């Protein structure tokens, strides 16, 4: 079956990924690549990108796995859209977001400035939100996308704080400079801990792992890309990138070790329990990245080498397994383990491809994955016996749940009807599986790629030594022990099931996901209540602004040193027109309290504004007076126009309504408080001599040079032009918002 025609957007996505893949290799062969452009020179921020060994590994994975997954997506997404009854055109949105993700990921791994890295860090979160919430009609998908976004961006704030701490202490955000000058101390300890929070959450490590299983609401290609080679890899990438810093504080590495082991166990047990194919793989990802974090926690050359090879192998194998889950669901229409089975005979090619991937992940010999566990065992055994035992247990757990996944899907008896699949849904899996097996026979190229990255992580040579040794060395013994224990675990799973279910239920009842849900619900409720208080009626809203503002200003007045703050000054003859106009203004303001009819009230308000405009004019502020007159006229006309739109009967009825006694007393009190406080402040301000403002003098002097005679206009259009530009942008946004709100309300 050839399947639907490939759209240009799918083709473009594959082409971008393939081009990035090729460009990365070409740049590496040419001796690396570096860009360093000042970005915000005042803050010493630089757009500095550089391709080193670590960046190479992650860029190759992001682009290479990306190209394969995008090819798979070109067949998968049209089917997905058809199932959901959505137009084919929406495909482009997914490919665009995937490409955005790829580009942000490449930026993240190439960035050599921590601020720049942070920008790309959040960009990946935004792209992942778009991707996980692709099925926007589904509430579940929207909530899952929101959860992934919130959890990963809220924990990105500690990363930013860490960057600022380092910048304050060492005066730079360039990673290389930081590594060169940083010394053990509180700054490195604090920054390292904050970086670890961000990185461990991004890599879905316990206890902040819960967003990843939820993110399985995404279409399968998204999971295959984000949750194997990209999004979750970003976390361990950051740990690798900053590893020389983290290694200054051994306690930080111990924390990583602890979190990694916890994640291996939590993720592994839940993967052994889960029945949904994609959720099983998500739990497995938590566990697998637990390995990487553990090895980074072990540190040293052995830990770095193991971590880097592990990331490489895991990305290849896990993306293939995610795509397998998608292909199986497409062929059978089923998503859960007990419902499928015995597919090996019906889909031999898919079975073979994913068998290779599963064998790699389970570290069976003659696959690339074998070496990742060898390095893991070596690093663990060097650290101590207890860690060696834990490592064997972890590997056994991995073998058990991966065996359960593949065996459950492809072995046993099955009577499911199987639809034929197009080639593009199967061949990407076969290609990745073949790669994994090829790595089992010719591990050299993979090892050297991992070694380039490991050298950077360990800040020194970290040889990735991969070879089969047919002897009784410790690693081999541990591997054999792990296979035996894994096989045992797999056969004993039926007895373990009640225990696993209890664990999963306990996690749901009191786990971090529950805390997240409760906290989010509480915040929502609080926001709703504030919203209610603020916008229930106009008077409440005004009170919500006036009363706190008055209280703050009153505090300021009380705590300002007194003295001759309030003085009345002397009245001279030239002031008489001004005082008369102010009296008119005050009378008009008093008059606004009387009328009950809307039109009269509007006219009284206009009278206040016009008399103030005259005051401005008398003070010689012609420009301000002009604007005041214009704005008052505009509002007067707007009021008249709006009143003419409302039926006269409704206006009369509204005018007859009398507020209750208590409400009137409250209104008077609020008005009096804000009036008195404003008067006090204005009086205090006018009582002081006006300070000589050198800026105003300079503006006046420069106006002539700028060919202007009206200094206000020159300030607006020239001296402070950027302010004006921003202000008119706000005007445009406000106008669009008003239009949208009015249309929206009247349509609803």
């Amino acid at each position: 079956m050839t399947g639907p025609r490939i759209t240009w957007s799918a083709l473009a996505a594959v082409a971008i990924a393939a081009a990035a893949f090729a460009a990365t290799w070409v740049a590496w062969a040419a001796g690396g690549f570096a860009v360093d452009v000042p970005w915000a020179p005042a803050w010493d921020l630089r757009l500095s990108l550089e391709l080193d060994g670590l960046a190479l590994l992650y860029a190759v994975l992001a682009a290479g796995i990306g190209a394969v997954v995008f090819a798979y997506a070109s067949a998968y997404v049209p089917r997905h859209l058809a199932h959901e009854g959505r137009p084919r055109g929406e495909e482009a949105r997914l490919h665009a977001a995937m490409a955005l993700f790829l580009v942000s990921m490449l930026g993240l791994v190439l960035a050599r400035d921590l601020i720049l890295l942070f920008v790309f860090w959040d960009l990946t979160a935004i792209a992942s939100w778009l991707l996980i919430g692709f099925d926007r009609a589904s509430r579940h998908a929207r909530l899952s996308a929101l959860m992934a976004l919130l959890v990963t961006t809220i924990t990105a704030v500690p990363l930013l704080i860490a960057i600022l701490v380092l910048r304050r202490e060492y005066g730079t955000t360039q990673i290389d400079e930081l590594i060169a000058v940083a010394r053990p101390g509180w700054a490195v300890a604090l920054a390292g801990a904050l970086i670890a929070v961000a990185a461990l959450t991004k890599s879905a490590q316990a206890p902040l792992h819960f967003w990843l299983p939820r993110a399985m609401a995404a279409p399968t290609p998204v999971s295959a890309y984000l949750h194997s080679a990209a999004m979750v890899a970003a976390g361990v990438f950051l740990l690798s990138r900053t590893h020389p810093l983290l290694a200054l504080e051994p306690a930080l590495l111990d924390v990583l070790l602890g979190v990694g082991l916890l994640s291996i166990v939590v993720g592994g047990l839940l993967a052994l329990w889960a029945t949904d194919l994609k959720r099983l793989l998500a739990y497995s990802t938590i566990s697998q990245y637990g390995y990487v974090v553990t090895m980074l926690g072990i540190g040293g050359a052995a830990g770095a080498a193991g971590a880097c090879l592990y990331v490489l192998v895991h990305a290849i194998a896990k993306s293939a397994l995610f795509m397998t889950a998608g292909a199986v669901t497409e062929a059978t229409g089923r998503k859960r383990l007990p419902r499928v089975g015995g597919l090996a005979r019906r889909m031999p090619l898919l079975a073979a491809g994913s068998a290779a991937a599963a064998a790699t992940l389970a570290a069976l010999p003659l696959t690339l994955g074998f070496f990742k566990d060898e390095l893991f065992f070596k690093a663990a055994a060097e650290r101590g016996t207890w860690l060696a035992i834990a490592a064997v247990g972890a590997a056994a757990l991995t073998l058990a749940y991966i065996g359960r996944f593949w065996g459950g899907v492809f072995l046993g008896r099955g009577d499911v009807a199987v639809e034929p699949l197009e080639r593009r849904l199967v061949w990407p899996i076969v290609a990745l599986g073949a790669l994994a097996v090829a790595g089992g026979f010719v591990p050299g190229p993979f090892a050297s790629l991992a070694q380039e990255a490991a050298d950077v992580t360990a800040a020194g040579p970290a040889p990735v030594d991969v070879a089969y040794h047919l002897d009784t060395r410790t690693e081999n013994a541990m591997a054999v022990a792990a296979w035996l224990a894994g096989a045992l675990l797999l056969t004993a799973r039926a007895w373990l099931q009640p225990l696993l279910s209890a664990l999963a239920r306990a996690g749901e009842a009191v786990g971090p996901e529950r805390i997240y849900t409760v906290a989010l619900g509480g915040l929502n409720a609080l926001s709703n209540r504030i919203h209610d208080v603020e916008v229930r009626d106009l008077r409440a809203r005004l009170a919500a602004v006036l009363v706190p503002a008055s209280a703050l200003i009153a505090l300021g007045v009380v705590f300002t040193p007194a003295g001759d703050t309030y003085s009345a000054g002397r009245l001279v003859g030239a002031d008489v027109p001004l005082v008369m106009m102010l009296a008119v203004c005050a009378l008009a303001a008093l008059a606004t309290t009387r009328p009950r009819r809307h039109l009269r009230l509007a006219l009284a308000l206009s009278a206040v504004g016009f008399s103030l405009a005259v005051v401005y004019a008398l003070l010689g502020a012609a420009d301000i007076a002009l604007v005041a007159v214009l704005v008052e006229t505009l509002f007067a006309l707007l009021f008249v126009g709006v009143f003419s739109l409302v039926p006269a009967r409704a206006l009369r009825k509204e005018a007859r309504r009398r507020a209750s006694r208590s409400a009137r007393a409250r209104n008077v009190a609020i008005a009096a408080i804000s009036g008195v406080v404003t008067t006090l402040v204005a009086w205090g301000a006018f009582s002081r001599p006006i300070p000589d403002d050198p800026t105003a003098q300079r503006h006046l002097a420069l106006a002539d040079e700028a060919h202007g005679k009206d200094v206000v206009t020159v300030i607006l259009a020239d001296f402070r032009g950027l302010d004006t530009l921003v202000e008119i942008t706000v005007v445009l946004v406000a106008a669009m918002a008003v239009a949208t709100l009015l249309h929206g309300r009247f349509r609803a």
Partner: protein
Amino acid sequence: MTSVLTRYVARLLLAPVLIVSVGILVKGYADVGDGFAAGVVAALALLLQYVAFGNDVVETSLPIRWSPGIAVAGLTLAVLVFAAPMALGDRPLEHLPAAGDEPVHIGSLELITAVAFDVGVFLLVLGAVGTIIGSLVDPDEEAP
């Protein structure tokens, strides 16, 4: 329905008010007023037409539909004037003619790029007010 007098005055005032607004705009650098004031004056002329004639008449006689476009065009013009010097290697918003040079005169009118910036502000204010009025009086129309 408004009185005959209102409608007569509104029709009579339309052209003079628009001319005054253009006057305020182009003479903004030499006299009181600027692009914002000119934009509000022009918007006032528009609003008066609405109050006097109602939506149905104004919609057919004046290009009110273009308001959002006019606003966007104004912002675009302002951004262009802001950013154009950067293409020439200057700092943003470096106006021409430079200090000391004599501007080109057309009659008593001086040609300065800052006035082009002000024209952007004028268009934006006019367009924004037009958009708001348009959506106030005719909320059922499809959002722009």
